[in-house]
């Protein structure tokens, strides 16, 4: 069973062994509005924690998606290129962005669990 963590930049990360799946939260997609374009990194790209991993554009804005932890991109969700609205429809499922092979699993320690993230959102809103 994967463990889900969250960042203060509203990304989620599901950890399964040394591979993690990254997306943006329901709150993030709601704030962005209709997503019209997603720019994904090349498979094989190395990202550092907090570095830019992808770009998501809505009708309102273009925003970076940051890597919650460092690692190497092992897969990207190509389906988002044709159907970017999937990010709005199913942010925690079919709307995932990319998979990372973790560089340093200890980086996960700084992330929030679901309860902490809910509290964080409630505080920000």
């Amino acid at each position, binding site marked *: 069973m994967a463990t889900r963590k969250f960042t203060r930049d509203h990304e989620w990360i599901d950890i399964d062994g040394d591979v993690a799946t990254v997306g943006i939260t329901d709150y993030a997609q709601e704030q962005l509005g209709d997503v*019209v*374009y997603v*720019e994904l990194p*090349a498979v094989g790209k190395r990202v550092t924690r907090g570095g*830019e991993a992808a*770009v998501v*554009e*809505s*009708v309102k*804005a*273009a925003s*970076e998606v940051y890597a919650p932890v460092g690692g190497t991109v092992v897969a990207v969700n190509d389906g988002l290129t044709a159907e970017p609205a999937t990010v709005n429809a199913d942010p925690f499922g079919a709307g995932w962005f990319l998979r990372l092979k973790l560089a340093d699993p200890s980086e996960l320690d700084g992330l929030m669990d679901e309860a902490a993230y809910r509290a964080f959102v409630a505080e920000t809103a």
Partner: protein
Amino acid sequence: MRYLPLTPEDRSAMLAAIGARSIDELFIDVPKSARLAALVDLPPHQGEIEVERAFQDFARANLSPFSTPCFLGAGAYRHHIPAAVDALIQRGEFLTSYTPYQPEISQGTLQALFEFQTLVALITGMEVANASMYDGASATAEAVLMANRVTRREKSILSGGLHPHYRETVETYARYGDFVIESLPPDPEAKEDVASRIDGDTACVVVQYPGFFGHLRDLAPLAEAAHAKGALLVVVVTEVVALGLVETPGAMGADIVVAEGQSIGVPLGFGGPYLGLFATRERFVRQMPGRLAGATVDADGRPGYVLTLSTREQHIRREKATSNICTNSGLCALAFTIHLTLLGEAGFARLARLNHEAACALADRLARVKGVRVINDSFFNEFTLALPRPAIEVVDALVDAGVLAGVPVARLSPNQPLLERLLLVAASELTTEADMDVYVAALAGVLA
């Protein structure tokens, strides 16, 4: 209140605030050889009448392409511009060359830009076009940058048939960028093999069509070779009138088409302002630089125009923007749109045919001058002559005879012995039989 913007006190206060001792200190990054030691020695001010007289004297020193037989080309072409173009672009609603900052209030401008994009897409055979770039050369550099983004590769190959100024512009962009330009040597005979140079690191190949030396080549095999290696084909057109007659770059498989639009609606004016055209495939539109006008409907269902896909641009995406192009050649784009609309599809094709026929007639006649050879086996309205003497000398001698005989290749590519006898010669719908008579006779005289 007195308005004294720069008192000595103001200056010293400002210098103190930024920690500089003198104004000159702000320019230390500029090499000393490029700085003026003293003010330029200019004559004292004069009245309007005297100034007009002085400038008329300067103007008389010019040999205007409109007052003498002119065969100049090489990226800047003499064409007729209907009087209606000038009258219409000067209407108050249109007379601004700048992109509106509150775009939707300028529905007429946006509609004109939308029509412009439609025309550019049609004549290039592409799916989408932007609302214009500065000129053909900078559009070419932007095409290379775009190809790098699309392919995530960093090497581009420039054909030796690319205009030398365009090549230099791309190389200037590359000088401090993270990408590599492989420029092939000048290729007057169109014999280069670009395809064999494409590899898995190649972002794009850039070819000119018709080429700088005038040749027309079927680009479909090159497009296939590029695509087989995951690279893009960028096609550059410096004489856009050709597109009225030749197969479109889009039909031959181009991924990006850039062009200089000056030939349609924009006069020769000492090198500017010019008009860059930029078109591509719909799937690349997010990586396309520049502004895009879009058609839509308002809340009540009425048609309207907007600037669209702006999330790619600087004012929203900041340093992550697709490019730093945030303006367009609005007034030139409008002139282009009006001229091409006046021509219509059939008129554009007819204009192109007139250009080609004039060039064919001229080439036939010049080829009969002793010692002169036309090196092209194909061309549109411009071709290359091989002369028995350095072309610069011949052209200078012909200027004395009142003929602007063409552009010596050595003017643009100096210090290359193999090119020094080559002369680019262009004809257009404005070229008359009498012009050709004068040219042929004068050339025969100079070479005799």
